[in-house]
């Protein structure tokens, strides 16, 4: 017997009798002998809860987490404060054991959560509408690319190299198979080179993809990029991998973005070794019906009561099949719930305060690290909570030394940016204390 399978041999016999067969083999007689598995799966025997728990904890203990190391690593996955309330709400199984809300009458909880999530994402990004979520920031960007291609009937995209390398890799994979050319644009002084963009865009450019704050932590000036993009009738796709920044920064909507995509991990989601996270997508009213993914809308029931329902479904794969705006079906609903609770809990004042503390602490750390004399600045541009510094030693050596002190050092940029030898991208969130920063600086100084 097994705890997850309730029927005993008594019920089994009753059911077999009701069907009119002797044993369950008869129910598998339609599987031809030549494809049948005649041996037991090589998976081992079942474990009891105690054995499982001991074994899996044993594996977990082979890891070092951010509880064991002080984290100065970001690069698209951020160690922010996660309010306790989040786990209490998301562990309600009415939320996490439900399916996609196909039956709105018994899914108003999920549907209202998504409606509120869409509202918060639209407000935070300054856009008209948002969808119910995408897999992550990188796939959201690829979807935005396809959306631009579909709506401009043009077949190429320009992407700045200041966009997160993994976002560019995922975009490249999708577009390679989708038959769309992707032109990568070199940076100048750590930001998108507007002059280079002018020559890169043409009548075949469907969209221009930029990121702000960009991969180097720099807040990009999008004014000129916006006008170059729109002058060539391409779409401006703004990627926001660090949405905490929107607590203080001007919204992409105000800067003229047509599509805003990004990574919502920073909104209350654990680091989780890279997933599950949550991609977000927001756009203009004009492009609303061209958005991929699920969308919740407000309506009324037959008694006139306000209610919420999955809407604009004619865009989706279950109706339009190969002509759908995307193939996405399941998304990251529970992570969208996490983001909603985070944005609700932090609220109008909290998101701003977190953003301000991040900026303050990052600038303090930057000044102190430069102050050691061992590191020099790489770019002279406004940054939010991540910054690049360079020393005379290999980044990997520095990180190895930091790890000895249980510090998780910065991102080694040379992996993705040949020529940026010895450059590290540090991240400082509101969670870091002055003491921790001072310790980091002290070790760096002593190297």
């Amino acid at each position, binding site marked *: 017997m097994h705890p997850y399978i309730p029927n005993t041999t008594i019920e089994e016999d009753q059911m077999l009798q009701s069907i009119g067969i002797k044993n369950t083999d008869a129910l598998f007689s339609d599987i031809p002998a030549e494809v049948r598995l005649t041996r037991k799966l090589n998976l081992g025997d079942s474990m009891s809860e105690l054995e499982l728990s001991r074994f899996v904890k044993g594996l977990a203990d082979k890891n070092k987490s951010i509880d064991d190391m002080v984290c100065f690593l970001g690069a698209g996955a951020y160690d922010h404060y996660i309010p306790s309330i989040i786990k209490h709400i998301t562990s309600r199984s009415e939320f996490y054991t439900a399916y996609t809300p196909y039956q709105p009458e018994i899914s108003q909880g999920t549907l209202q959560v998504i409606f509120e999530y869409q509202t918060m994402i639209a407000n935070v990004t300054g856009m008209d509408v948002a969808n119910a979520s995408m897999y992550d920031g990188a796939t959201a960007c690829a979807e935005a690319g396809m959306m631009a291609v579909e709506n401009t009937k043009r077949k190429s995209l320009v992407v700045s190299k200041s966009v997160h390398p993994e976002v560019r890799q995922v975009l490249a994979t999708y577009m390679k198979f989708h038959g769309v050319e992707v032109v990568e644009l070199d940076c100048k002084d750590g930001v998108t080179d507007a002059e280079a963009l002018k020559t890169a865009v043409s009548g075949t450019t469907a969209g221009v993809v930029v990121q702000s704050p960009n991969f180097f932590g720099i807040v990009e000036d999008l004014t000129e990029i916006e006008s170059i993009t729109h002058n060539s009738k391409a779409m401006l796709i703004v990627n926001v991998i660090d949405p905490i920044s929107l607590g203080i920064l001007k919204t992409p909507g105000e800067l003229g973005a047509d599509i805003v995509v990004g990574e919502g991990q920073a909104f209350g989601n654990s680091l989780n070794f890279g997933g599950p996270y949550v991609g977000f997508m927001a756009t203009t009213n004009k492009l609303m*019906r061209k958005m991929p993914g699920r969308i919740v809308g407000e309506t009324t029931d037959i008694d006139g009561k306000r209610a919420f329902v999955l809407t*604009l*479904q*004619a*865009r989706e794969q279950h*109706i*339009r099949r190969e*002509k759908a705006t995307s193939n996405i079906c399941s998304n990251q609903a529970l992570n969208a719930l996490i983001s909603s609770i985070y944005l609700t809990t932090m609220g109008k004042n909290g998101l701003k305060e977190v953003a301000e503390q991040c900026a303050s602490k990052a600038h303090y750390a930057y000044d102190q690290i430069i102050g050691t004399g061992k590191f020099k600045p790489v770019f002279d541009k406004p940054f939010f909570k991540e910054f690049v510094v360079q020393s005379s030693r290999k980044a990997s050596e520095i990180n190895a030394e930091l790890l000895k002190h249980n510090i998780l050092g910065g991102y080694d940029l040379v992996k993705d940016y040949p020529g940026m030898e010895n450059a590290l991208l540090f991240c400082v969130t509101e969670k870091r204390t002055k003491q921790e920063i001072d310790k980091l600086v002290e070790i760096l100084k002593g190297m």
Partner: protein
Amino acid sequence: MNLLNDLLYTKNHEWIKVEGEKAYIGITDYAQHALGDIVFVELSEVDTELSAGDSFGAIESVKAASDSYLPVSGTIVEVNEAVIDDPSLLNQDAYANWMVAITLSNKSELDELLTAEQYEAHCK
């Protein structure tokens, strides 16, 4: 099934009404009924040149979506903004509410289309 005798039809459930060099195009009553409550209509822009069989727009209901195809070649000279603003007009009267008007570029293609009688037989 509601049909008008002075129109031509396609197997894909569009109708066409020819007035000299110009023609108005819409969807049939049968099509609107099959789609159910129409919630959204999208049409190609004026000046778009299309060949017979090209899509000139899309119609969406809550549970279905359908592309609309031009029965004959031509250039779009007018789109009916009224049905874009209020897609339910197509449900109310599919024949009174055309979707696009075109100038015909090859009138002989009209010979390929169905009469009301032929279309009725096709729908059975």
